């Protein structure tokens, strides 16, 4: 089965679309025919990604907004729905590490933990809350939470980020349980360690040559999105995903 064609004309919203995995996903999904609505805080970088996609014949709209801002949620959802017609897939990719260098949990300011939870957990929850309802009426839709191995393993100094990602995985599972049988599916995807600006900020001494390219991971995640039949609520690891499987 040709999974690429399943993405033709699908309306896909990606948060954190201005760089790293988000930008790579935007390029990959656009190449496969999807119509994209990209959200990130930085207008200039985001517009650059959208413009590059359009230059290659793809369809992408940039919308600068902060996913952690409660007042921005209806603007994002309303504009995305109008531009795309229907939002068929949401990819919660935007996330923050909090202040770097990363600190021990006990040295983490409460406000920094709150900010990480706002961006990585509450923001995606709010956006799902307003975008999943139309999916219920349509009887189809997919929400992807970009996760991390820090959601599963207790790495020292990754407390705020890891706790937020673990909670995000669980939110995806609970959405999946509550909406079982409705045609609306939820996935968590652990992309693995990638050579991105975020990784460099967290682990500046890492050997970059040992890290995966975001473009490679984006292809695998695009396959997951295109492929039918993945059980809603599943947590998938891109590092071990077989392309074309």
């Amino acid at each position, binding site marked *: 089965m040709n999974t690429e064609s399943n993405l033709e004309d699908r309306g896909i919203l990606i948060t954190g679309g201005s760089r790293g995995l988000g930008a790579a996903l935007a390029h990959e999904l656009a190449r496969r025919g999807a119509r994209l609505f990209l959200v990130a805080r930085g207008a200039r970088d985001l517009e650059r990604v959208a413009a590059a996609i359009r230059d290659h014949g793809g369809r992408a*709209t940039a919308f600068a907004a902060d996913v952690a801002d409660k007042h921005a949620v*209806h603007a994002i*959802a309303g*504009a995305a729905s109008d531009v795309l017609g*229907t939002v068929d897939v949401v990819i919660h990719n935007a996330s923050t590490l909090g202040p770097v260098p990363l600190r021990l949990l006990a040295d983490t300011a409460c406000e920094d933990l709150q900010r990480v939870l706002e961006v990585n957990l509450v923001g995606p929850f709010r956006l799902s809350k*307003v975008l999943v*309802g139309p999916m219920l*009426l349509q009887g189809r839709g997919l929400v992807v939470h970009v996760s991390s191995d820090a959601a599963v393993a207790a790495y020292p100094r990754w407390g705020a980020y890891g706790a937020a990602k673990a909670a995000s995985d669980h939110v995806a599972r609970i959405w999946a349980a*509550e909406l079982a049988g409705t045609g609306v599916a939820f996935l968590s995807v652990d992309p693995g360690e990638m050579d991105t600006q975020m990784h460099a900020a967290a682990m500046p001494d890492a050997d970059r040559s040992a890290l995966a390219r975001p473009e490679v991971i984006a292809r695998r995640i695009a396959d997951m999105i295109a492929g039918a039949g993945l059980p809603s609520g599943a947590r998938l690891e891109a590092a071990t995903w077989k392309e074309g499987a």
Partner: protein
Amino acid sequence: MSPATAPRHGTIRLLHLAADDTLTEGTLADLPQLLRPGDLLVCNDAATLPASLRAVTGRGEAVELRLCGQTGEHDHLAVVFGAGDWRDRTEDRAPPPRLRIGDQLSVGDLRATIVATDAVAPRLVTLQFDRAGAALWRALYAAGRPVQYSYLDRPLDLWDVQTVFAARPWAVEPPSAGLALTWELLLELRRAGVAFARVTHAAGISSTGDAALDARLPLAERYDVPAATVAAIAEARRRGSRVLAVGTTVVRALESAARRGGGTVIAGTATTDLRLSETTPLLVVDGILTGMHEADTSHFALLGAFVRRERLHALAARATELGFLAHEFGDVALILAAPSTNVCRRRTHVVACSPP
């Protein structure tokens, strides 16, 4: 009936006017028991846009713009109000200053030019904004607020006026019958075998502050019926199930699409000025879940298409007696058309039918 003065999160009461004219009191949570497996519940998925904008004219006069329908990439119809705020009843607001074609308005850093004015009601204008698409949405959401109601005890936030299934921001004021539907209830209905479908209907402005213009309401409204909804209605007809509308905007959209299709609902986007009343036959819709509204509104007139006027008055009287609350955040009624009302259903098992 008194209006509900704030958004509600508790029990919503329901009056059920059955096809045999019996009137039963209950709550919205009873809906899964009142409907039948296979019934198709059609919802308006229009999100409510922040249609109220504070603007300044080129001469420095402060006005309020209420957007009331998108007519082009850059163009929106708007009603202009003069001094005052949401605590004033719309009809008590000062009239706007005289506006002419070519006049410029500023809404923050957003600019709009008046490109048309209504021949009879000068406060109804067409605005051309200096941007379109996502950039215009971004500016409107940054500057605008939802249209406010003077009978509420606090100003409304956008979160207060969205249905759980709101998608494209086409509605100027909330398609309010849907505001009462929670996820809990929708999933319960689904378990009870009720099917869902959607239309997008640009629910319009409810009050303009100008009696002559109010008499023309509802203005022409844009709607979209997806192909999947057309298929779901045909399927419901085939199995002998009912098509039920959540709110009057859904009735307007489906009945307009049926007239456009010569008797059968057709898919697509169009604009409608259809006014339904006791003299217009229903081609598609068999019943409606609706908010409570006073007699002498266009809303009440539309309900006349479902049941005889005296039954509607009986329903309103009973609701008042029971202390039901009215308006956007009020209680609801489930009105099922008498079998003879819907011309399609008179001929059982007919999928398509022609308007008389």
